């Protein structure tokens, strides 16, 4: 089905048509009812895609068996993601946004190879991937720095793991470069607990970039930071991204953050059985800065679109909870 919709050279209208900012991508549901696919707006030719998600579903198995039934702990299977397809081109910054608990982390972990899809597959440059690899660098919400290693040690651990045959001198050079890149020069010998949250996440970003991945995965990288630090780090990410232009997938809860950084914004519906609702194209010119982005004529329109979406989905979640 995705072949049918996403192939076939329907992309000629895709790029130039700014009047239709909302571009539902391949948002397929396994049922035949009301998917919002508009052939004209499918803008990616899957053969160009760097990352292709094909009919990804994730089911967390419930507790079964007579023992659980007897103790009243039985639960049914939980469908977190259902039949999700998405293509991401090279050098694109994609944000995923959606109501809490809809399955964003689940999806990112599947792309990272940390957990496996129940059905469907992830293709990177046409190859099926089902386990983690150094082609994907990951930035964690809780930083996930090893507390017993220094800043330098944390980054070196990654470099040594991925490039075991590289000479010591070259490894050191890479570590140093990446420390510089994220603006941590001077803090090399510090341990994570001596750093502020913002500085810790800088280490997390440096570690992910030091292995020179093709794809950068970030799960709410600034979720634990205060607003000011968050802003600083967003600017840093924008600056670094302009330098390297690696394909990036970032989960976020912040509309402004998504608009500042992304080329596309994937909006997910609420769970269970979450799907992709819409994919927005963000047309702001690069390199970006906060003020220029906010003054762009499409900014408010896009923001409104996202707010409406999030509001709708979150309200549905709340209503379900009350019931």
């Amino acid at each position, binding site marked *: 089905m995705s072949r049918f919709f996403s192939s076939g050279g329907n992309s000629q209208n895709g790029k130039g048509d700014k009047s239709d900012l909302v571009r539902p991508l391949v948002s397929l549901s396994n049922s035949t009812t009301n998917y919002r696919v508009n052939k004209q707006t499918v803008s990616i030719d899957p053969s160009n895609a760097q990352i292709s998600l094909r009919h990804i579903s994730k089911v967390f198995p419930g507790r079964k068996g007579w023992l659980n039934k007897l103790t009243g702990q039985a639960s049914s299977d939980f469908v977190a993601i259902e039949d999700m397809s998405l293509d991401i081109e090279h050098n694109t910054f994609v944000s995923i946004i959606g109501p809490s608990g809809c399955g964003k982390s689940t999806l990112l972990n599947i792309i*990272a*190879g*940390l957990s496996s899809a129940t059905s469907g597959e992830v293709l990177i440059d046409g190859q099926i991937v089902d386990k*983690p*690899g*150094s082609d*994907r*660098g*990951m930035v*964690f919400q*809780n930083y*996930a720095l*090893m*507390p*017993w290693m220094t800043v330098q040690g944390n980054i070196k*651990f*990654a470099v040594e*793991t*991925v490039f075991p045959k590289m000479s010591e001198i070259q490894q050191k050079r890479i570590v140093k470069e990446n420390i510089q890149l994220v603006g941590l020069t001077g803090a090399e010998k510090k*341990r*994570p*607990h*001596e750093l502020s949250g913002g500085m810790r996440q800088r280490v997390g970003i440096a*570690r992910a970039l030091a*292995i020179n991945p093709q794809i950068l995965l970030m799960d709410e990288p600034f979720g634990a930071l205060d607003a000011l630090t968050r802003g600083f780090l967003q600017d840093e990410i924008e600056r670094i991204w302009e330098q390297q232009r690696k394909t990036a997938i970032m989960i976020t809860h912040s509309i402004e953050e998504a608009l500042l950084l992304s080329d596309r914004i994937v909006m997910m519906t609420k769970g269970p059985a979450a799907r992709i609702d819409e994919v927005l194209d963000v047309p702001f010119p690069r390199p970006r800065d906060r003020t220029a982005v906010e003054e762009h004529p499409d900014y408010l329109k896009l923001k409104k679109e996202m707010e409406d979406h999030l509001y709708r989905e979150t309200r549905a979640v709340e209503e379900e909870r009350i019931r």
Partner: protein
Amino acid sequence: MTAISKRAIKSKKESRLLDNENVQAILLFLLSLAIFLGFWEIGANLKWFSKGMPTASLTIKELWYWVTHPFYDNGPNDLGIGWNLLISLRRVAIGYTLASVIAVPLGILVGISRVAFKAFNPYFQLLKPVSPLAWLPLGLYIFRNSELTGIFIITIASIWPTLTNTAFGVANVDSSYLDVSKTLGASRWRTIFKVIIPAALPNIISGLRISMGISWLVIVAAEMLLGTGLGYFIWNEWNNLYIPNILVAIFIIGVVGIVLDQIFAYLEKIVSFGKS
């Protein structure tokens, strides 16, 4: 003006010294110690306690004698307390090291592998609550040697806390560290040595600390039946019915226990890296 403010500062300083928690604690400690020793001294002189209870002053005098003459040797029943202490420490050191060398790797294995955990857990659960002294006859029967038996008892007694703490620490390594390792594609060995063991180190050290405490508890009891060491010193003085020396030995055992414990407290602090 300046005089007033100076005085204000001075009185502030004075009150601050008394407000200090540590100063208060030391004062309270000294006070309670004085009351305790005074009560002991008077009570012993007035025969409030059982017959033959030594006075505090006599006990302190004996303590001073033993501390200043730790190393002499007039045969096994009259051995300086320093020698006895060294004998006990040596047994503990050997038995404890042996236990640690077994318990840490086994704990790591059991912590990593759920199958190993399930398979071996029954042994741990069964053996953990058995008093180490219950092994004494078995040790004597097998080794026919009090020295080896002592070491055996220490090993058996101190293996469990290290084993269970290590296994717990390894099994509960923060999953985000493991995710990092996985996303980098680290090999299993690299993950174990570079991530799992360092992450579990605080638990391993606190297991070792508890084990050390238990070794020190058990050695004294075991030595009463074995014939040298601090435990035997106490047993011997009991046979001589000379209570001051027993009290001296108790004091010295306590002090050495504190020192051993503090070594591990220091190690724990080193590996905690800002946590707690």
